[in-house]
């Protein structure tokens, strides 16, 4: 243990002698903290604005005068999406998904006014969030620091002396990696402390969930650092020259971090094609039309429906019903169309999940993809969370519309259907739209593969060095 510690201290001293070390590391930390603060201000602003608009939409809903309930369902409501509190750390897909959904009867609308549609093309690669910098830039820094750690020992002859002095290679490597783990901790801890402070200072309530998420993020990025250190030190161990280790590491970094994600993202729609907006809407309209047309008096589905209702109430004619038949038809129409929509929507989401699962085939060769997936899930800023919001908005829309249809059925007399208005007090009884970010356990629900591969990557260097130690295949010669 003493020896391991001595080796780490030696490694740290070498870096401490290097003047640029004292500039580079703090500069990067400052950059990341600036990105954190910038994103945090933006997220706070967004949460504030979206909350205000949600309150405004609720106010407009509740201040409606006496109206016919069907008219109210056409008036509709809005669901505004506030970014999840930890989005300041990892912006995820927030810039690319819409911020507001119009909830009206008969139709399901898309989320509109995504930030990316205002920004145009600058965004790719350069969503400067702390997570992005940590995932992309930090490994490069680690490569710059550690690429020559073992080749240097070998080229200067120290490795041969150390090994001949009965130092097990495993201890030597542990000492080396310990030094860099300390450097990683010095780098990461201030950033996460800053993140914690910003989360505490945020307008969103600081719940246990956020604390757990921050802890999980810290653990993730720490493991990510160790993972890269393992790769770097393995390369350093296995290369003859420092330069070849550096070239290999830089090329690996480029391919893993820059090229592969873009390639996969671009190829995914080719392999699992999804419909465009107009195709989706046309398919939906056709599917709904196939079920039945509520406006058509000869429609078989609604004729059947009418017969069932008449039988249920024990009357012979629609005019004898104690309730409003028009309301019942609206309810039925809404139920059918929403059912069809859900089927199509879930099919679409499944296609997207399949597209995303393409990355999983590359986890064995690309640690960046694993870390980014987990990071987005932990900060609740990936597409699954957006679909969760969309689903919640659709559920709210459906419940509201069906409640209005019930009011139409039971409160509005069929004889006065066109002109009757019901009391405005009804609108106040509707609960406002409220969206709760799911818990960490929901967010991490489908990440088993990611965790397994993360574990694999963490243990890979151990396996490699164990193998090397056994076969004694180390180039200890100059």
């Amino acid at each position: 243990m003493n020896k391991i510690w001595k080796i780490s201290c030696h490694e740290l001293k070498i870096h401490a002698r290097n003047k640029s070390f004292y500039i580079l590391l703090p500069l990067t930390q400052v950059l990341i903290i600036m990105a954190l603060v910038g994103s945090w201000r933006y997220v706070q602003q967004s949460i504030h604005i979206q909350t205000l608009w949600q309150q405004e939409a609720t106010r407009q809903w509740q201040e409606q005068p006496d109206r016919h309930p069907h008219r109210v369902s056409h008036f509709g409501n809005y669901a505004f999406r506030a970014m999840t509190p930890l989005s300041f750390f990892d912006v995820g897909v927030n810039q690319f998904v819409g911020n507001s959904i119009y909830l009206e009867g008969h139709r399901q609308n898309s989320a509109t006014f995504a930030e990316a549609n205002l920004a145009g093309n600058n965004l790719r690669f350069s969503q400067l969030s702390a997570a992005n910098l940590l995932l992309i830039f930090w490994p490069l820094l680690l490569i710059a620091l550690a690429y020559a750690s073992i080749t240097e020992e070998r080229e200067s002859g120290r490795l041969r002396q150390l090994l001949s002095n009965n130092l097990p290679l495993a201890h030597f490597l542990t000492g080396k990696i310990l030094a860099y783990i300390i450097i990683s901790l010095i780098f990461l801890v201030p950033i996460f402390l800053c993140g914690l402070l910003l989360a505490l200072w945020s307008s969103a309530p600081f719940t246990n969930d956020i604390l757990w998420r921050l802890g999980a993020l810290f653990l993730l990025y720490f493991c990510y650092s160790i993972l890269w250190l393992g790769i770097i030190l393995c390369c350093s161990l296995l290369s003859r020259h420092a330069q070849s280790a550096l070239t290999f590491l830089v090329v690996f970094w480029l391919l893993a971090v820059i090229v592969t994600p873009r390639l996969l993202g671009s190829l995914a729609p080719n392999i699992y094609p999804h419909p465009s907006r107009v195709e989706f809407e046309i398919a939906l309209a056709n599917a709904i039309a196939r079920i039945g047309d509520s406006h058509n008096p000869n429609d078989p589905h609604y004729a059947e429906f009418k017969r069932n209702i008449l039988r249920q109430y024990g009357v012979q004619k629609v005019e004898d019903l104690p309730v409003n038949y028009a309301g019942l038809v609206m309810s039925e129409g809404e139920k059918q169309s929403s059912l069809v929509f859900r089927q199509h929507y879930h099919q679409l989401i499944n296609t997207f999940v399949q597209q995303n699962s393409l990355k999983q085939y590359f986890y064995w060769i690309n640690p960046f993809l694993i870390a980014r997936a987990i990071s987005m899930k932990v900060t609740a800023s990936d597409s699954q969370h957006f679909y969760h919001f969309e689903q919640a908005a659709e559920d709210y829309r459906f419940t509201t519309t069906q409640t209005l249809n019930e009011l139409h059925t039971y409160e509005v007399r069929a004889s006065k259907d066109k002109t009757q208005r019901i009391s405005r007090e009804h609108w106040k009884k509707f609960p406002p739209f409220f969206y709760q970010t799911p818990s960490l356990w929901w967010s991490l629900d489908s990440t088993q593969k990611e965790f397994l591969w993360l574990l694999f990557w963490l243990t890979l260097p151990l396996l490699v060095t164990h193998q090397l130690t056994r076969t004694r295949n180390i180039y200890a010669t100059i």
Partner: protein
Amino acid sequence: MQRFKYELTLLWSGTGIKLALAFYIATVAIALWQGNCRVLNEAEVHNSLQTNFEKNLADWSAKVTDGEAELGLMGYYLLTPTAHSAPTWARLIYGQRDLDLLQQNIRLLALEGQIHASEINNPENQITGFIDLAFIFTYLLPLIIGLMCATLYANEQQTNRWPLLNALAGSGMAVLNYRLGLGFLLLTCLNSAVLAIAILLTNIAFDACAAFIIGSLLLYQFFWFSICGLIIRLGLNTAASTLGFIAAWMVLVVIVPGMSNLYLTHQYATDEGIALTLKQRQFMNDAWDKDKKLALDNFLQHYPQYADTAPLGEAFDWKWYYAMQHLSDLAALPHLEQYHAIMNKRRAASDHLAWLSAPLNFQQILTQVAQTDMTARHDYLLQVRHYHAQLRNFYYARLFYKTTTTEADIAQYPRFVYQPPTPTMPWLHLLVLMLSSIVVLAIINNIGSASRPLPQRYFWRSTRSQ
């Protein structure tokens, strides 16, 4: 000529360069294939929408001319396709088309409720973006250049050939410049071949746009070769050269665009879009409660040519309904103008901030020439608005004067035809790109002079303990 052959052999001798160029060509092939697939897919969707529309129009025409359905009902249900057809360069420079709603179905109702819809896209794919030729030229080409040329001096120094080269007539620096020039020539030939093949395979005309793009590509290459020159002039060792070049690439490609984007998002944050949709909905809904005759008079002030229309009765009248739809659009107009003003300011600021980083500048040039940038998108949306006005004029003429609609009337139904804007060459951006190279050359000149030649260190010790 002899020297040219030998230098070329030297350049081509490493496995690294061969692998890198093979990778480059492979990604170019993938990019061309992807661009082609996307554009063909878009055209296919558009064609199917057109056929669908013509069929629907024929159906509605039959119903309306028979008197089975009212014209107003047709305006409510009939969806007309508008499409942002891909410009010719879109196969190579896809720009932001993967974010935009490229085909939209418009009906006679208020436009503000329709035009802000979004495309169905997997946002996780949008984070990384689309592989097109612009990506390869902007992001990957500098890396190839760095691989070829960043360590020219350091290699010579490391293998102790530098003192020999420097002692030859025509100093060592001239040799390195020759090699930089050779690399430039090689990549120019490669990229020109790539562009030529791309242009041949697609139906792009070899006109001013193509010349402009090739010119800006050459300037961009020159910029990165001058960055290599700067690194060489600093006289660093191999590792530092490589890392220095990668750091320069990261700063120019990731950090500067990221910071400028952060600034822009902050400075030009707006919720006018939400405000205008809420305003439009509120107005349209309130209209049902207000005095209909008064409201119609309000509308007729904007359209006095229909002032002698028949007065409204008690029953629901389509002309009143569509008049209210238009008035709700007009009610949202102040917010819309504010929204457009902020977006324009943001676009201008983004243009100017792009000058800070040559890759961003170059990408801006490419997307502007290819008409796949924000300006082209804005232009298309204006055309959609214009088309909606045409549609309204078609219907108003027949709704306000209750004539029976004939086949001849339906034959006059306007269709959307996308007019690509006249290409504007971003000369200012090109100038700034040239300036960036000049700035780098000036820095090189400042560092290097006769009194401070390249260092002649002898590298027999480890590189790190220096």
